């Protein structure tokens, strides 16, 4: 840093600074990506090859590890469970979040402030710390060790932020839209469904991504709620898998690669939406 401060004052940044910035950025991107690259490369190697030539390029036609992970382990089951749990939770979050957000944004009522404060409290409280009573509640409802235990928990965690995102957006829509529909004799549900909601797809996408990524990646609640192997989600199943094949590194890297692939590919395809969605809570 001292080298920078001693630079002569200049209206444009000096070339040496731009060079240093490039070096730092390239080094950082290398550190961010290289571990992921090594993971993928190692998945094509046998354990012996990984130990002897950790940095060498593999023979990419050698897909035995992947075939074994997909054919001989429970990984496909974990995958299906993760898709089911994440999909249902996000759908519930969007439906319930849009309902509450729409009511607060489009109808004036004395209870609106109360409703918003109620959801604001839900936004602040870490439900992780209430996992013991949640565990007992789910047991009493007969939901423990089922996928529903996760779905209701994730919906409860994600709902408040969805209410705020939806209400914040719906409030900005001009009321002329619904007035015109009302004059035409459209009912309230019809105005919501056919006039307003088609305009609300962008905030729905943000709320969906903001919730889908942490739900897909969550490990804590499955660890506490799910015992049966056939109902485990991917992150939890991965710990069982890693414990079973500890010495077969080719298998371990193939398992990690398969687990990481869908979300990484989706991120590369939709990076703008991912970044916008995942930082939505912290960027105003």
């Amino acid at each position: 840093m001292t080298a920078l401060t001693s630079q002569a004052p200049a209206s444009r940044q000096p070339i040496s600074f731009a060079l240093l910035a490039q070096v730092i950025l390239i080094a950082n991107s290398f550190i961010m990506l290289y571990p992921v690259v090594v993971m993928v490369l190692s998945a094509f190697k046998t354990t012996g090859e990984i130990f002897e030539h950790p940095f060498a390029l593999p023979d990419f036609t050698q897909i035995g590890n992947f075939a074994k992970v997909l054919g001989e382990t429970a990984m496909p089951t974990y995958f299906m469970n993760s898709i089911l749990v994440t999909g249902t939770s996000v759908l519930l979050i969007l439906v319930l979040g849009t309902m509450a957000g729409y009511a607060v944004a489009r109808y004036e009522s004395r209870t609106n402030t109360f409703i918003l404060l109620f959801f604001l409290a839900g936004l602040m409280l870490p439900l992780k710390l209430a996992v013991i009573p949640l565990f007992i509640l789910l047991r009493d409802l007969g939901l423990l060790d089922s996928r529903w235990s996760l779905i209701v928990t994730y919906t409860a965690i994600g709902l408040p932020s969805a209410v705020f995102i939806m209400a914040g957006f719906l409030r900005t829509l001009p009321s002329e839209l619904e007035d015109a529909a009302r004059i035409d004799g459209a009912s309230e549900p019809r105005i919501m469904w056919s006039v307003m909601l088609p305009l609300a797809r962008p905030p729905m996408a943000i709320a969906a991504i903001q919730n889908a990524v942490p739900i897909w990646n969550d490990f804590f609640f499955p660890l506490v709620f799910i015992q049966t192997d056939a109902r485990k989600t991917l992150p939890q199943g991965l710990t069982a898998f890693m414990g079973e094949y500890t010495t077969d590194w080719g298998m371990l890297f193939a398992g990690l690669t398969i687990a990481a692939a869908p979300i990484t590919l989706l991120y590369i395809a939709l990076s703008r939406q991912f970044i916008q969605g995942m930082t939505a809570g912290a960027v105003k």
Partner: protein
Amino acid sequence: MIVSRKQAPSLKRQMWVAFLVVPPIVFMSLFVVYPILSAFAYAFYDWQGLARGEYVGLKNFKEVLFGATMAPVVWNAFLHNVYALVALMIIQNGGGFLLAWLLYKEPFGFRFHRIAVFVPVVLSTIIVGFLWKLFLNPNFGIVNQALYSLGLDSLAKPWLGDSSTALGALILANAWHFVGFPTLVYLAGMQRIPPEIIEAARLDGTNEWQLLKNIVWPLVAPSTTILFTLLFIGAFNWFEIPYVMVGLDGSPFGTTDVLGLVFYRTAFGNQSASIQNFGMGSALATLLFLFIVVFASMLTLWLRRREIQF
């Protein structure tokens, strides 16, 4: 925005609004409000496994804070949470700020770098933890392999097995996982600074360091408030990375034990001992909850004061 200004809302419309708000509120009450309120109550009871016993007042709290078996473990773990918080504030949030500043100037390849820095953020913490556990393996991990091939054999270590490096390794793995988040939040904050301000400072001959310290840093204060508060909450809820990389007992010798692991061991038992104490677990969760709420609010209020309107 006001729709029913002209006539009093009809019964039909009130029913419709109720239909919209009641299900979400009932859902939240059942699965958020009720468990959180019960969490406080549970801490005042004695528990036999999953069955609630008698009311014991503050006994569980005393045991957690001052008890002969529990307190040393709790305070040891608390200290590690504090280390992690301080280290991550510097490495993760500080590093994110500097990276954001480099990206803000939109140098060659900045789109690529912006996407690259966020790749680890989208990965599951479990994947990140296992990946680094394999990389840090004393014999076959790429970290030591790289050191051997560079002739730096003396630096190679059993990173996760050595008491002096294990916690540091967990902190670095966490920083690798999340540094992209503060980077992009700070970048968005910097992009909201009116460019004229920075341009004017440059014309006045301000150097890079003064520009960062006196202009950019104060103007991204709202991002700092949110990032530091989120990191504070995250550091005291830290669980997944330690669980995956060093196990439930915070090995070696408790040098990586954190409150999240202590809570899980207390409430849901560890496989070897199969102990389950919901009373003590609830007391620990309640204390942690109050600690987080009180300090996070104070931190937010204190950080808010430095924010400047522009």
